[in-house]
């Protein structure tokens, strides 16, 4: 076991223990021992799985990712307001459209983040994803246009570069 794996496993140990404490909230010795046993069991499983897993996806929690989350929450609020207007407003304003966005420039790792961000913002929904395109369904044509020229791709890309 080299140094990198040990650091990696100890980060997981801290995260898992924190999570266990969050869910249980008890500090009795017996229960803490049970927690310790389950954390070690998960770590052993994790180590064994990492040995067989050839394509690992490690998500980095860093500043640029947090910035991206804050920006995304802002997007969620603003697009929710527009969908709310559509719900209460005139039905004729509803012009559902479907479009394809190229994703071959986005690195493999960030594609899930991109498609999930599209779905999380109300008004746009990713229907299908393959190697080259992600198919988008939107409540009006403008949202597809704004995704095509918009800065979500750039933000996802920035986040990826920040994680490197």
């Amino acid at each position: 076991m080299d140094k990198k794996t040990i650091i990696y496993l100890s980060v997981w140990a801290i995260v898992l223990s924190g999570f266990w404490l969050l869910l249980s909230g008890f500090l009795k010795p017996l229960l803490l021992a049970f927690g310790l046993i389950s954390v070690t069991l998960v770590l052993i499983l994790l180590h064994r799985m990492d040995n067989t897993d050839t394509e690992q996806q490690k998500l980095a929690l860093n500043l640029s990712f947090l910035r991206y989350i804050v920006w995304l929450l802002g997007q969620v609020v603003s697009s929710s307001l527009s969908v709310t207007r559509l719900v209460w407003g005139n039905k004729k304003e509803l012009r559902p459209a479907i479009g394809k966005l190229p994703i071959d420039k986005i690195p493999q790792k960030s594609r899930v983040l991109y498609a999930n961000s599209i779905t999380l913002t109300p008004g746009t929904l990713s229907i299908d994803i393959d190697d080259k395109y992600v198919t988008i369904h939107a409540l009006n044509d403008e949202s597809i246009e704004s995704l095509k020229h918009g800065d979500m791709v750039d933000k996802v890309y920035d986040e990826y570069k920040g994680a490197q």
Partner: protein
Amino acid sequence: MILETLSIIFLVLGAFFSITGAIGLFRFPDFFTRVHAASITDSIATLLIIIGLILRTDFGLIAVKLLFILIFLLLTSPTASHALAKSARHGGLLTMAETRDDKNKEAH
């Protein structure tokens, strides 16, 4: 006192957005548009209601648990919507724009 007022505002807004989503579930014309209506309740209503509840705690273990529920729901709801839309599309359900195109083709 300020926290209480803020919490009331967040909870009222959250309830309003939930009801908006439920109304949209009935008002929108086809399946794919209804997914959008449901996604309002999944994203912004969840966010507002949980923030409103966090403001009522003493920011201890309970607040962390609420935060965990929020993160979990925000992670899984787009995944579920995507899986739903994908299986609907693979099951052969057409969107409104496409059915319109089909009718135009038949007319020509």
